[in-house]
């Protein structure tokens, strides 16, 4: 059937896998944005820079300290998450009573500063990060590299785990309730300001973890975050701001759609996500999974 369309299955499945990988990163990053926006009411423009910092932290741990990939996978999210906690305590905390715009401006400015510092220190050509899982499996229709398979599985586990934690656990019920009525949740005896700080740390840690996962695929580059974050924001808009499940499903779906576009109409592959965004905004302004306010 694929041959009928003039597309060899190798190319089709190759692009599908590439789309799935990209989708995995869209999903992980937009998930963090959704969690942060839900509770903090802040559109975290620093998210891309924090993802980049995650990749760089993995590279530094390997090159400078000799900590391998699997160690970085645990250390980096904690480390970068802690910088997020610091950032929240120093800056973001003071903006919650103001319009979204202020949080957006602050985090956008911080992203520019962080990127500039990394560019000055490491240049912009990028640094290689070795693949911790070389080799792959030859399937009937395509070659499946081990590391890429791992990334897809890891991101699915992360996304499902985060969804489960928020939608199905006691801690998650505090978070969901605090999104609706922080004042009342606090008046029940829950330390909401601390919960907000930790949530931001968690979202940032998630971005950093995505950065570690990305390092062996895309290499480590100061602008890797800003290249990705624009698409991720489109994903968030399409999925609906603040919706956890929406962020996950939209992330993966748009990665795949983008991959398929590369097969069938490569000219549109860079714009297809933004075309979808425009259409969704016209038909459902709150996003596919968002609730209109």
């Amino acid at each position, binding site marked *: 059937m694929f041959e009928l369309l003039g597309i060899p299955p190798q190319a089709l499945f190759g692009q599908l896998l590439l789309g799935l990988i990209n989708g995995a990163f869209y999903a992980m990053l937009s998930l963090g944005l959704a969690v942060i926006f839900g509770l903090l009411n802040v559109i975290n423009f620093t998210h891309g820079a924090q993802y980049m910092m995650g990749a760089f932290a993995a590279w530094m741990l390997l090159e400078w300290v000799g900590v391998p990939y699997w160690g970085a996978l645990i250390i980096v999210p904690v480390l970068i998450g802690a910088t997020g906690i610091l950032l929240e305590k120093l800056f973001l905390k003071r903006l919650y009573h103001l319009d979204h715009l202020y949080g957006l401006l602050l985090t956008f400015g911080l992203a520019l500063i962080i990127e500039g510092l990394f560019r000055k220190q490491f240049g912009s050509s990028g640094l290689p990060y070795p693949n911790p899982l070389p080799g792959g499996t030859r399937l009937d229709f395509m070659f499946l590299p081990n590391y890429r398979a791992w990334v897809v599985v890891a991101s699915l586990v992360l996304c499902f785990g985060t969804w489960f934690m928020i939608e199905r656990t006691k801690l998650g019920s505090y978070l*969901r309730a605090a999104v609706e009525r922080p004042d*009342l949740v606090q008046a029940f005896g829950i330390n909401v300001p601390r919960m907000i700080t930790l949530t931001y740390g968690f979202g940032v840690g998630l971005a950093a973890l995505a950065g570690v996962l990305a390092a062996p695929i895309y290499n480590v580059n100061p602008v890797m975050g800003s290249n990705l974050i624009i698409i991720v924001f489109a994903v968030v808009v399409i999925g609906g701001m603040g919706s956890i499940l929406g962020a996950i499903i939209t992330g993966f779906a748009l990665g795949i759609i983008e991959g398929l576009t590369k097969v069938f109409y490569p000219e549109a592959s860079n714009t297809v996500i933004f075309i979808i965004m425009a259409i969704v905004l016209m038909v459902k302004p709150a996003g596919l999974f968002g609730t209109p306010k």
Partner: protein
Amino acid sequence: MHNGSIELAVSELNAWYGESHILHGMQFEVNKGEVVTLLGRNGAGKTTTMKAVMGMIPSRQGSVKFEGQELIQLPSNRIAKLGLAFCPEERGIFSSLNVYENLTLPPVVKSGGMSLEDIYQIFPNLKERLKSQGTKLSGGEQQMLAIGRILRTGATLLLLDEPTEGLAPVIVQQIGAMIRLLKEKGFTILLVEQNFRFASTVADRHYVVEHGKVIDMIPNDQIDANTKKLESYLGV
């Protein structure tokens, strides 16, 4: 009616919403085991008083003492931990939580709270709807959920803000019976009401609030003698 010790003492309480000065020196006391109401018209400052006691209004001054301990500087989560619990007028049922999650949301702050089984006995409707979305319940059921969830925390002072508002008369009667039951169980209750006829069926004393301060106090056994006065206060 009560064992005489003061559970809540509010004095010279002032509170602001932004620039507007809402409470102008509120002053009242609630004894242990008592049911006391704040009566007054819309906008008199009754809800603001409750929120200020609970620490939910950042801009507040004066003194709020619970069992002798000063609360005025404490954040609301610390106040809740001491054993005060608030049931807001708009009920505050969370739409993203189901009934069970709503019911078990407030953490237990002290021992001696009611068990879920005790709560289901008072509100049998809730037990049948545990998996429903909280806001899918009827108004009366939402009110029962809003009160039920603060009974398991071990809080000894309940602040109930207009629990009968917008409910059918038969539900209002149920709520009245429930308040009397809670009093029997030893809870101390501060009740905000606009309807003094309902208040007189449950309360020991009534404070009349106007323009952010208490202007009169009427014990419940003298309410009949003061009906005219009350009606003029409340503009009935």
